[in-house]
């Protein structure tokens, strides 16, 4: 009945879960801000309070994400690739390819039948391939990011972006707005641009079915549909996709990872 805490300290938001016997019993999400150390501390205090637990009840804490180094109280850290794989398999054991769309990174991960990561590609050099681009355009359109997906479904004429750069894309969106393009069409255009970047990552890593989408990007119904259309098949989507890496982190401890064991990446990954 050990309780394990998984923390995913991301560049945009920080996610925490408490897992008991492989099942999450508490979820919590906070904006990361600029101080990862402080947000990790707050995340722990608040999720413990929500679950009615104290720090002593937690057998182990595993941190992942960009700010994992700053989680002073964590027992171990794990790479977000491994956590993502572990988290997704815990929900969909049949998955072999995972598209993880985060705020700053998009990664596509291939796993084998035993759940080991065998390959991955990360888009981390350019903001156009990640949630960032959508963030920027939502800001231009003055809409809440969570409305971007549903709104885009109302598009009948998606805007085609001529640029592959998020900064130039922002100017292009502003010009299109001034030319009278609708918010729906611009958002649908952004989703298509992201979908085409994602599909090149999928091609590079080599697709094997089933394929799932996780990360905050999977909450966006417009993006999910655009990716499905581009790839030509349905994606599996976990219910709380933004918590998958935190859940995966907790699972790492449940599966007997101790301080002596390595949690580094395996597989022949390529960073793009």
């Amino acid at each position: 009945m050990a309780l394990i805490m998984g923390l995913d300290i991301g560049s945009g938001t920080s996610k925490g879960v408490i897992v008991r016997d492989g099942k999450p019993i508490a979820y919590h999400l906070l904006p990361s801000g600029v101080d990862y150390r402080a947000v990790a501390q707050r995340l722990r205090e608040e999720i413990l309070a929500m679950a009615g637990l104290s720090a002593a009840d937690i057998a182990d804490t595993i941190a992942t994400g960009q700010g994992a180094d700053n989680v002073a109280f964590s027992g171990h850290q794990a790479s977000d690739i491994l956590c993502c794989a572990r988290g997704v398999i815990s929900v969909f054991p049949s998955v072999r390819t995972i598209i993880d769309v985060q705020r700053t990174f998009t990664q596509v991960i291939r796993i084998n039948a035993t759940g080991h990561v065998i390959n991955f590609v990360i888009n981390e050099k350019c903001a156009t391939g990640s949630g960032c681009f959508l963030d920027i355009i939502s800001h231009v359109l003055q809409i809440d990011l969570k409305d971007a997906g549903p709104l885009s479904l109302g598009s009948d004429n998606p805007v085609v972006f001529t640029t592959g750069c998020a900064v130039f894309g922002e100017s292009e969106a502003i010009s299109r707005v001034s030319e009278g393009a609708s918010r729906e069409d611009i958002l649908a255009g952004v989703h298509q641009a992201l979908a085409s970047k994602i599909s090149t990552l999928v091609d590079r890593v080599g697709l094997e079915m089933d394929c799932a989408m996780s990360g905050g990007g999977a909450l966006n119904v417009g993006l999910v549909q655009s990716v499905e259309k581009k790839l030509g098949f349905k994606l599996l989507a976990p219910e709380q996709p933004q918590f998958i890496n935190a859940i995966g982190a907790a699972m790492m401890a449940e599966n007997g990872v101790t301080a002596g064991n390595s949690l580094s990446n395996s597989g022949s990954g390529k960073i793009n």
Partner: protein
Amino acid sequence: MGIFRDHSIREDSLIYFAGIDLGSTMTKVVIVDGDGKTLSALMGPTGPEHRRLANKVMADALLRADLTFDDVSYVVATGYGRINVPFADRQITELTCHAKGIASLFPGVRTAIDIGGQDAKGLKIRNDKLVDFVMNDRCAAGTGRFLDVLVGTLGLRIEELGEISLKATQKLPISSVCTVFAQMEIMACLSQGTPLPDIVAGLHDAIANRVVKMIKKLKIEPEVVFTGGVAKNIGVVNALQEHLGLKVSVPAEPLLTGALGAALMGKELTLKAIAEGKPIHEKERRLVESTFFHTENH
């Protein structure tokens, strides 16, 4: 300027050429005389209404040279918005015009680097002519846009960057190429208390690194001339020199070389037509009152 007020002299012996460079950020006009001497040079920010702005900057430049539009024999438009200059006699690409303008100021130029508001170019120039080029207009990194975005994050003005960077004790290494990611990186550094001059010097180094990587394909040879709005930033000039290992020359008005080259191209075309006994203008001149005097230019 007295001589230009004397219409009899002007009509008899002097001809004028104008170049207009409608860039993504600034619109520039240069008027030269028959000797290629600059009489008037002006710029204004390119707004969303290209045509009106083109008219206005042109009108102001004419006023400054004490000329009327009819005094100008030939108008060449260049730059990204060159198609939106209704009164131009001809459109010529900015690469050709830049090469021309730069070579007129630095006859020994072999390599030119132009960093503008939304692109960066490397030009290989031999005997006044463009022979090869490389260009980045796909990614904001390595263009003036990179600095435009980040200067906002730092709460500074673009004109201050050069001076501030000179106070740096070390350069902050910026690991992200992408402007958006660099912005996040810098926000984190600001919160950790990295001194502002070090951050600015790091940005200059990043832009120089990116541009030099691109233009290396041209086999860089001296003399190297640096133009475009970013050439006004002494920090980027120094960073380029460091990355190239060569001295970099900057014209007094690094934004105007395109418009200057356009005016000089107009002069060349006119003299060629006269020598060949052909009509100077291929089409009827388009400067009609509706393009000019009916705007709210007063």
